[in-house]
């Protein structure tokens, strides 16, 4: 009987997650999906490192290597790092501003499912004739020449998941603009919320160029257009520009939320308000702004001419300044603080030297004339893994430990956390530090092998060994997650004891309506202020009243599913498969019918009645 109950429970839970529009559950969905893709991308990285461990290795073939390398980059950036970052934004940002949900819960769910189906579509390429093999940048001449459907998977998969990201970004922006609790002015917003804001703005402006680029490539590959066909008047440099107009802001889309997570971590575990809050905000905005002026630094060797190269070189260097401001502000947040080295704090602390090392090589790359040497070598690979792994991944790991109790109501084990940390950090430096030298010694990137006798052997071996350390670290983390979930020791509102912002003022995990009464925010670090005055809870800004909540819906799932189906049709239509066009039409019909349904069927949501809220408190079900 109990098994029956459990089974039913599972089905119900599944349905709950398939139809949820609750930002906290969507956050969990993002975390699971992003985590899954991170392991996939990580496995691909391990294959890369194994293949390159020794010269002339034949662990994988040349063509397969290119597919693995391409999918590693694409998966990590689009399907692992971004969704994981989105997970924390969804989980934390609405709580931090004292909102009951995001502005468009339905759109939030739709964003997730679009990302998810896009990612699944992209990865199905492995089983359907081969993955994309033109690099994550998919430069046009090679991508157009690439045989099979690999690049089509790339184009369509990214298009679908890109739309999801875009609407997710808009949603966050509106949430922050419109739904802040009483007293939560812009300059009282926690930095993670600020970074969500700037990141979302970057998404809003960076994804349309990618969309256009992907559309052009789709038209070329699937519908006979000639944008990149030189003999027909086309121009491949257009792709390079469109990709990087998106691509450079994209790297800041990744790093700014990381900055946000670390800003919270430093303040919490130093028990000190963030040093130079306003300049931190200013620096965020400035980085976001400059991020749109520098894209051509990825194209220094394309032959844009000295004037363009000089302008973009100098503009790129300028980004070092606001980033430096942030680094020093973090250091001085800890200065004079009371620093406790919990697992999240260990990640935050080690992030500083790691990221600075990656950042300054970025500035070296920005020196255009010298970049003629660095470009497309392992020096660049070293640079971006230093900023991405040393910045973004460390932040994701920090965030996972920091917000786990808030998301799931139980703590991850600290000892195991520290083991993961140690292994990962050692592995990370071991893997990527030496790659700077490989690049300078003349090893190009994206090579499936190298010949013996050029002096690359030892360094590559070292790098591979390091990668294994990282893998073991990640495995320990997975074990940690399983073990602690099984134990499931519940925690209270503020499990770290030093929470400063609103999310720590409510139960872990929060009730589905978040705040029974919207809190009154009286300054920066609102919860900390109350605690310092000896209060254990926020002062409410409103009397208890009915709470309006949105209804769950299955339509986000079907809208995304429709596009997923249509993409197959579009892709196989080039092979003159008779079923291709019908499939495409059916897919689009599913999407449009769902959208139509959504717009004609009124959805006013429901109300939680004030009596129920009061009753719950009395019974002590929720604090």
């Amino acid at each position, binding site marked *: 009987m109990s098994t029956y109950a459990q089974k039913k429970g599972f089905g119900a839970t599944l349905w709950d997650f398939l139809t949820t529009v609750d930002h906290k559950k969507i956050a969990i969905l993002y975390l699971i999906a992003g985590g899954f893709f991170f392991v996939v991308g990580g496995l691909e990285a391990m294959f890369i490192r194994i293949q390159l461990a020794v010269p002339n290795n034949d662990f994988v073939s040349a063509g397969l290597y290119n597919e693995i390398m391409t999918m590693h980059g694409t998966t990590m950036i689009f399907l692992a790092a971004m969704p994981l970052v989105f997970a924390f934004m969804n989980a934390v940002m609405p709580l931090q501003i004292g909102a009951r949900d995001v502005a468009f819960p339905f759109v939030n769910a739709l964003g997730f499912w679009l990302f998810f189906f896009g990612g699944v579509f992209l990865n199905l390429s492995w089983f359907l004739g081969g993955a994309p093999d033109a690099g994550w940048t998919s430069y046009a001449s090679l991508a157009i020449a690439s045989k099979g459907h690999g690049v089509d998977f790339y184009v369509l998969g990214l298009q679908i998941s890109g739309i999801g990201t875009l609407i997710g970004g808009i949603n966050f922006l509106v949430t922050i603009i419109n739904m802040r609790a009483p007293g939560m002015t812009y300059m009282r917003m926690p930095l993670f919320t600020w970074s969500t804001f700037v990141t979302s703005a970057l998404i*809003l402006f960076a994804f349309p160029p990618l969309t256009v680029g992907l559309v052009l490539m789709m038209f070329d590959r699937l519908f006979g*257009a000639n*944008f990149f066909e030189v003999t027909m008047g086309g121009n491949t440099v257009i792709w390079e520009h469109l990709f990087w107009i998106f691509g450079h802001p994209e790297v800041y889309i990744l790093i700014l939320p990381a900055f946000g997570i670390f800003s919270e971590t430093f303040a919490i575990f130093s028990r000190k308000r963030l040093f130079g809050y306003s300049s931190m905000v200013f620096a965020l905005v400035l980085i976001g702004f400059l991020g749109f002026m520098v894209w051509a630094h990825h194209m220094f060797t394309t032959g844009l001419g000295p004037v363009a190269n000089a302008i973009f070189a100098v503009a790129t260097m300028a980004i070092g300044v606001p980033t430096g401001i942030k680094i020093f502000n973090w250091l001085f947040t800890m200065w004079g603080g009371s620093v406790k080295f919990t697992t999240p704090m260990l990640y935050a602390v080690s992030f500083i030297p790691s990221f600075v090392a990656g950042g300054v090589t970025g500035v070296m790359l920005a020196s255009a004339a010298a970049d003629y040497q660095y470009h497309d070598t392992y020096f660049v690979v070293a640079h971006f893994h230093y900023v991405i792994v040393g910045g973004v991944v460390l932040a994701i790991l920090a965030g996972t430990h920091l917000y786990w109790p808030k998301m799931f109501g139980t703590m991850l084990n600290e000892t195991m956390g520290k083991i993961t940390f140690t292994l990962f950090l050692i592995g990370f430096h071991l893997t990527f530090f030496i790659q700077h030298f490989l690049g300078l010694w003349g090893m190009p990137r994206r090579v499936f092998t190298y010949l013996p006798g050029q002096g690359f052997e030892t360094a590559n071996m070292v790098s591979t060994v390091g990668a294994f350390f990282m893998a073991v670290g990640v495995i320990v983390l997975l074990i940690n997650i399983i073990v602690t979930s099984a134990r499931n020791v519940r925690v209270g509102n503020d499990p770290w004891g030093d929470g400063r912002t609103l999310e720590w003022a409510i139960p872990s995990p929060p009730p589905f309506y978040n705040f029974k009464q919207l809190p009154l925010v009286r300054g920066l670090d609102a919860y900390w202020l109350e605690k310092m005055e000896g209060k254990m809870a926020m002062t409410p800004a409103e009397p208890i009243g009915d709470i309006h909540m949105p209804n769950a819906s299955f339509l986000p799932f079907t809208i995304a599913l429709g596009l997923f189906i249509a993409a197959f049709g579009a892709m196989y239509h080039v092979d003159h498969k008779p079923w291709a066009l019908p499939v495409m039409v059916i897919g689009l019909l599913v999407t449009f019918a769902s959208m139509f349904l959504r717009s004609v069927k009124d959805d006013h949501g429901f109300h939680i009645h004030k009596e129920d809220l009061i009753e719950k408190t009395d019974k002590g079900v929720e604090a």
Partner: protein
Amino acid sequence: MQVEEKFTYETWPAHSEKATLEAKNKFIGFWLFLGGETVLFASLFATYLALKDKVPNTSMPHAKDLFELPLTFAATMLLLTSSLTSVYAMYHMKNFAFRKMMLWLGLTALLGAGFLGLEIYEFTNYVHEGHTFTSSAFGSAFYTLVGFHGGHVAFGLLWCLTLMFRNSKRGLDLYNAPKFYVFSLYWHFIDVVWVFIFTVVYLMGMVG
């Protein structure tokens, strides 16, 4: 304020498009979306400008040889007027004059359909002259830019009709007022894009 509440001419709020939180969200969200659309169309314009007149051989038509002033002018007038009619629709929404609003919306849709018709006619003409989507990079860029705009018009038409159909019996309330308003924003934005298309693509194309 309850969304389903029935209103009268007297009680109808001044800014019905922003009267509820949902409406405010929709309002801001849609404007942000338009910000993104601006970048989208700018990228398409940029591509078009880079590929303008890029044809594989000189015998193929260039912008100069293709475009015709009268047709473009007629299309422009239709779309411009439809912008005005949607302004009228919003004017009547403000005054809680539902029937009149529907009338003007219908007119807007009609003008939009006229525009689309002209565009399709124009495209078939070009195809006969050998300027097709696949004939050259210029062709691809032209049809993509103008076609994206046309696609927006078509989507707008569907949207408008769905709105009218869904709300025909219901009358105005705070649930659908923001929807109408946001549609009108969209429609104006389409016109904004068209202003640049007729200037940059057609007029500048004809000047050479």
